[in-house]
Structure formats: C-alpha cells, structure tokens
C-alpha cells in the first residue's frame, strides 16, 4: 500500500489569470433583509440608520446604528444552532443560504473538496462573548458556555458556513477591519485559481452590544449626532464620523469555466484586486488607498476613463475623506467619475461593508443604475467629486470598489460585467 506516487492532482491548479465570476448574492443589511429588499431600498434611497434597539444606548455618547430589520433568528437558523451562534453568525448563515440558493448551487453535488469558504471578520461574535465574559466575572469560570470556545472567535462564520453546507475545500478568514470585505474575495479568487470550483465568500459582521459599542467608541470615529439624517455625512463639510452597522453580504464566486459548464447566471467578474498599507503614523509618504486603486486598475487592464462608478470607502472623517477625494481626483481628474456611498444608508458594517458594496456594484451592472449616496446634499466643493446623490440610470460595465480598514489597511477591487471584452489576457 503506497500513495507515494506522483499522480496528477485531482484539483489541478488553473492559470494564474483564470477568471472568477460572481454567481450568487445574499444580503442582510440595515435597510433590507434579503437581496431584493435591500436593493429596492438602496435604489430608493431608504436608509436603515435608527436609534439602537439591541441594547439601551441612551447612556452612551453615540446612539444611532444600522440594525438589520425584521430578523427573526428562528425563521432562518435551525434551533440546534441557536444556542451556539452569535447574532452576526446567524446573519451570515442566512446570507450564505440566500447566496447559494441564488446561485442555484447544490453543494452536496459538488465534487469532494471543490467548494470552500473565505470570510472577513473584525471582532468576531462580540455579543456572545460579552455574555460569557459577564458570566465569568460575575459568577465564575464554571458558568462559561461550552460554545464560547468557538462562538465568538474570528473563524466562526467560515467554520459554520462550511459545516452547514458541507464545503470541504480550502477555507480562510481575513481580518483587516473594513478592508477585509475585499481581501476575502481576493483570497477566494486565489483558491479558484488553485483549483477550487466555487467559493462562498464575503463578510457579515456586527457588534452592537454594550461591550462592542464601548470598543467602537474607543476607535474615535463614531458619530455622536442624534439625527439619523445628519450622523454619517461622508465628503460633506459637516462630516463628523460614521454610524456603525451590522450585516453585510455573502457572495458566490466561481471559476468562470465551472460557472459556464453549469449554465450559471453570472452577475459579473472580480476582474482585479490590490491591497496596500499606509505609512506608519508620523512617517512621511502618501496614504495607500490611491495606490491600491491604481494597482487594481492596472491588473484589470482598464484605464481610469473606463471606470463607470466608484464605490467609495467614505469614512465620514474629514481627514480621511480628504485623502480619498485626493486619490480619486489624482486618478480620474476633478469630478471625473461618478462616486457613490450607499453605505450612508447602512452605516459602516466593519468586515461586512465592502462585500455589500461589491453586491451593490454587481446589481448596478445588472440594472444599469448607480445607487445613491443619501443625506449628503452636496460634497464639500474642495473635494471636486461627482457624488451620486440620486439613483443615476445608465450602463455600468466597470465599478471600482474601495475599502479602508482602521489602522492603515487599503483594498481596491474592480468589478466588471461579464460581457466586457478583456484584451489583456
């Protein structure tokens, strides 16, 4: 008995340029549970930012959040999973179910090891963790749940999605704060190029509990405004921080050949991606967001003039807004490209935000419309941005999605409609 031979691998790697296409979308967002509900609200400019309901936030300096409306866990999650899952994991499992159904994939029919999971995480199941920390410190270690060992940790969504759907291929978890929602997609694409057929990827996140709120506040970027229409105003002269939210998107990313073989409906392609990191605080040098965008466009072989819309990171912090506007102006010229931030309707979703922006980009391609930025009547003149403040119809073939993670993380992804000819391969 020996397997010590050089057999051809069952999962032969594909060319490093093999194309990765999106074939399924699942959304849990503060302005809509489910892809179509969220998308309709997004195009209509209906925001989901409201006073916090998940706990009594009245004693905290910030009181607004984007919470997923109408989510009844027992309607979406098997009862045996309820005691072992944090709220954000339930949202993630729900989004994954929708994405797989949308893609029309029967994971049980996939070849062994052909499907994997890569998600982004930021703080893990923080609300679950708070409950167990409270048990520990108020009553003692023996009161800590048997599920604590995994329910709060950063790998939980990937693990639970993998188990629930029998996905035994390569899996992963990336943590780079808000940039992670793009980093995860890029890692999923790498796995497709290494031989996987299908990846469940993206990010769904949330830590709207007193302990999470306290940690978010310590980051120094949370808006303390009490008017939901005035709290998160990226690129506005009145920008004063952002509103945190929960939710995100789970996407199905497939090898283009595998998708074609099963006649899958294709939303678009993850045509390019790049990540950079800012210079250390106090050190000279340009912030890295613009460089990430340039690298991604170079990989895609697309000139700035070929970009139809930019989904901005939209920090809502004056210095950061200025950096992003500078980068966009350098790349595209003054008012050189439509820029939008539908996250003004959801708040910033930590690891979930950039994946949701990619979902929006894919549907913008499908429906030939750019979703709006709300609450910002007009961007500050000095930024020279063409900020889309009402849904703007028109063909969208190429979208640039930008994301920044607190601490210096930058990522950029180019999303193209599948029909676009690609000449650089």
């Amino acid at each position: 008995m020996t397997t010590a031979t050089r057999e051809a691998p069952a999962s032969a790697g594909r060319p490093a340029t093999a194309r990765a296409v999106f074939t399924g979308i699942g959304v849990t967002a503060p302005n809509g549970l489910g892809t179509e509900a969220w998308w309709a609200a997004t195009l209509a400019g209906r925001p989901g930012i409201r006073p916090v309901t998940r706990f009594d936030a009245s004693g905290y300096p910030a009181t607004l959040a984007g919470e997923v409306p109408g989510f009844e866990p027992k309607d979406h999650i098997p009862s045996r999973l309820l005691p072992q899952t944090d709220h954000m994991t339930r949202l993630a499992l729900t989004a994954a179910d929708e994405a797989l159904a949308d893609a029309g994939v029967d994971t049980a029919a996939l070849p062994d090891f052909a499907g994997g999971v890569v998600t982004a995480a930021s703080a893990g199941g923080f609300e679950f963790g708070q409950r167990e920390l409270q048990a520990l410190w108020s009553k003692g270690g023996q009161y800590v749940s048997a599920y604590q060992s995994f329910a709060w940790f950063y790998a939980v969504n990937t693990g639970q999605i993998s188990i629930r759907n029998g996905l035994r291929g390569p899996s992963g978890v990336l943590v780079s704060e808000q940039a992670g929602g793009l980093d995860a997609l890029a890692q999923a694409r790498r796995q497709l190029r290494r031989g996987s057929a299908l990846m469940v990827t993206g990010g769904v996140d949330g830590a709207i509990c007193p302990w999470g709120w306290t940690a978010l506040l310590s980051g120094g970027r949370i808006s303390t405004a009490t008017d939901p229409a005035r709290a998160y105003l990226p690129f506005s002269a009145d920008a004063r921080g952002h509103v945190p939210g929960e939710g995100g998107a789970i996407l199905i990313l497939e090898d283009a050949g595998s998708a074609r073989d099963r006649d899958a409906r294709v939303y678009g392609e993850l045509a390019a991606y790049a990540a950079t990191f800012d210079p250390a605080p106090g050190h000279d040098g340009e912030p890295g967001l613009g460089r990430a965008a340039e690298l991604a466009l170079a990989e895609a072989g697309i000139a700035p003039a070929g970009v139809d819309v930019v989904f901005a990171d939209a920090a809502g912090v004056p210095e950061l807004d200025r950096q992003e506007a500078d980068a966009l102006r350098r790349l595209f010229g003054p008012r050189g490209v439509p820029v939008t931030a539908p996250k003004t309707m959801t708040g910033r979703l930590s690891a979930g935000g950039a994946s949701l922006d990619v979902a929006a980009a894919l549907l913008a391609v499908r429906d030939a419309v750019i979703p709006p930025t709300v609450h910002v009547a007009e961007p500050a003149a000095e930024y020279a941005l063409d900020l889309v403040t009402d849904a703007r119809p028109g063909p969208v073939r190429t979208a640039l999605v930008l994301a920044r993670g607190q601490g210096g993380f930058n990522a950029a992804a180019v999303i193209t409609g599948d029909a676009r000819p690609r000449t650089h391969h």
Partner: protein
Amino acid sequence: MSRRVVITGIGVVAPGSGGGTKPFWSLLTEGRTATRAISLFDASSFRSRVAAEVDFDPAASGLRPQEIRRMDRAAQFAVVAAREAVADSGLEPEALDPHRLGVTIGSAVGATMGLDTEYNVVSDGGSGWLVDHAYAVPHLFGHFVPSSFAAEVAWTVGAQGPTAVVSTGCTSGLDSVGHAVELIREGSADVMVAGATDAPISPISVACFDAIKATTPRNDDAEHASRPFDRTRNGFVLGEGSAVFVLEELAAARARGAHVYAEISGFASRSNAYHMTGLRTDGVEMAEAIRVALDEARTDATAVDYINAHGSGTKQNDRHETAAFKRSLGQHAYATPVSSIKSMIGHSLGAIGALEIAACALAVEHGVIPPTANLHEPDPECDLDYTPLTAREARVDTVLSVGSGFGGFQSAMVLARPERRAV
C-alpha cells in the same frame, strides 16, 4: 515555474524563556518542557491550571513604554519576534521598497487577554449588561479588531504592501505563512514578514476550554502534563508565543547572499465541514491537505524525512492525525519520524503553527529532529514513530508540518532544503 519562496529570517517568542530563537531551539532539542502551574493569573478555581508561559519582559525585549501600553501581550510578542526575524535575515529595512514589503500575522483569539481584562473593568466585575465606556482605555479598539497586530508589525518593519491578519483558529500560523507565500508567488509582494501570535492564558480562555474539557486537568504534574500520543494523554496544555519569518524569493535571497533556512515548497488547507470542535476519526481532510501540499511541492510522499505533528494531546486529535498520516503517506508513514513540540511548549492556538514552522526550519538547518516529550506509554491507536523523549540527529531535507483547528480547518505545509528540489 512560479517564484520559489524561502525563509531567510526567524524570530521566536516561546515558552521556556523570555524570547529568542536560540533558547527555543535549545529547549526543543534538549527535550525539556516549559509547562507549569499558571502564574499569569490566579487560576485556582479552574479545572485546568497548567500552561506553558513565556517569561516575557516587554521593556527588556525592546518595546517602548507607549508600545507596551497600547499593545496586547500577543501583539507585543509578534512585534518582538518580527524584529528578531528582520535582524536575523540581514535585510536592511531602509533598502527595501516598502510598497513591495507585506505582513501577515495569524492569530486565533486576538487580544483576548486584553479584552478579558478591560471587560472586567468597564463592567465592574460583570455587574450588568450595560458597561461603562468612560472606563475604557483609549487603545481598546486595537484589542477589539486584531488586525491591529498586523498593523503593529507593519509599522515596526516599515511595510506598505499587502497586510492582514489571518484568523483560522489553530491553523492560523500555517495559514498565515501559507498566505504570505502565495502573495510572493503571485507577485503582490517581494518580501513578506509573516508569522503568528497568540497569548490566550487568561480566565476566559481557560474557562472556555475547561467547559469542553479540551485542556488537561493534570494539575499535580504540570511539567509532564502535555502528553501527545501517550496512552495517558487527557487534553492539551494551553501555551502562548509567537514566531515570525522573513520570506522572500529564492533568487533574490541568493542574489544578496542571504542565509536560507528552508524553502516553503507546498501548502494546502481543507475543511472537515463536520463539527466546530469535533473530528472524524478517519483524517480524510487532513490527508487531502497533505496530498495537495506535497503535490504542489512536487515531492513524493516517500521523500518526507520528518513530520511535525499537530499532536495536541487530546484523545481525538492524535488518533485523527495518525490516520491522516497513514492515509496520505501510506507505508512511508511508519518509517517517518513524527513529533509534537506541543509536548514541550504547549498549544498556543493560532501561534503554534508558526512556532512549528520555526522548529521545522531549524530541523532542516541543524539536522536534528525535536522529540515528543512525556511519551512513555504508547497508545496502541497511535502506532507511528513519534520520536519519544530525546531528539534525534538525522539529515532532514523535507519536512511536513500539519495543523488542525476548531472550525474544521486542516492545513499542511512542506518545507525543503532548497538545493534538494529540482527547478
């Protein structure tokens, strides 16, 4: 042929000393154990009260007062290990293009120690659901999202290329380094500072492993508490630490006359899609990860000279991976020395995979296979050569290192003496 990636610098913070690669390797090759009664907090009310702790002095390790204040212990380990790795590599950070220098840091549980401590304060001992944000430390956000670990390392080495934390439970260390290798191969970076760190010896971690009886209750014999592959094993011993590497392309390393420890020639991961903490006995997914990693390394299973096992010392793990080795290597599994350094330095969750890569690279470098300490009574169900008690001198050209983690992750990495592999 894609770019070949090699280790040219190693930095370690491990139990048994205050840090440094040299004391780590001495401990392993002498077969000493660093497991002891927990001293980092009063563990008297817990079921498992043993751990492998680092005698870490942050100031003596070169950290500045503000670094010490803002960083969790795990981040401190990673920064210290990264600095040692860069110094060891002989690279002059100023001579590098910062845009082509990236960072990946693995961590299973992030700043759990700092979060545990700070929660206790803002909640005033868990006195209610609402907590008092006014008592929060200003750097709490860095504990909240552990990407701060990668940011700290990037700041310390001057990286502005791709930077992230990889968090796949107990395979985080292997997966972080594997990810960094891919980034160099695909051309996203030329040099990566990659590794992993964890410092989980705090009440909440000890409590959660107590709750599922994953850790050993052998409190009366702490020094011999970690017993991988032994018939009397009854759980793992929690550890802590970090290992960080400088990775670069082989040709570039040779061009600058760098010392090359080993090539990372293959890496793969698979998932068991079975249970968040449980393992099936057959080891199919780990075997598949091994098979794919060997295939990527273009290495026959018969070429494997040493297997660095996950070897956590839980009943289920040690059987699971023994089955995986047999399934993937066939008869050669019986002829290959296997060992678990967790017998000496405990299980530092996400960090251990990186510490094990360090051990593998040093095994290639020195021609010494570290032993499995405390293995006196072989388990009939674990019937391979686990290198009991004493290190073994042997030519080591090709090493397999594996990991298995909560969430179902199974990872395998192949390291090789670079001149061995045909180009």
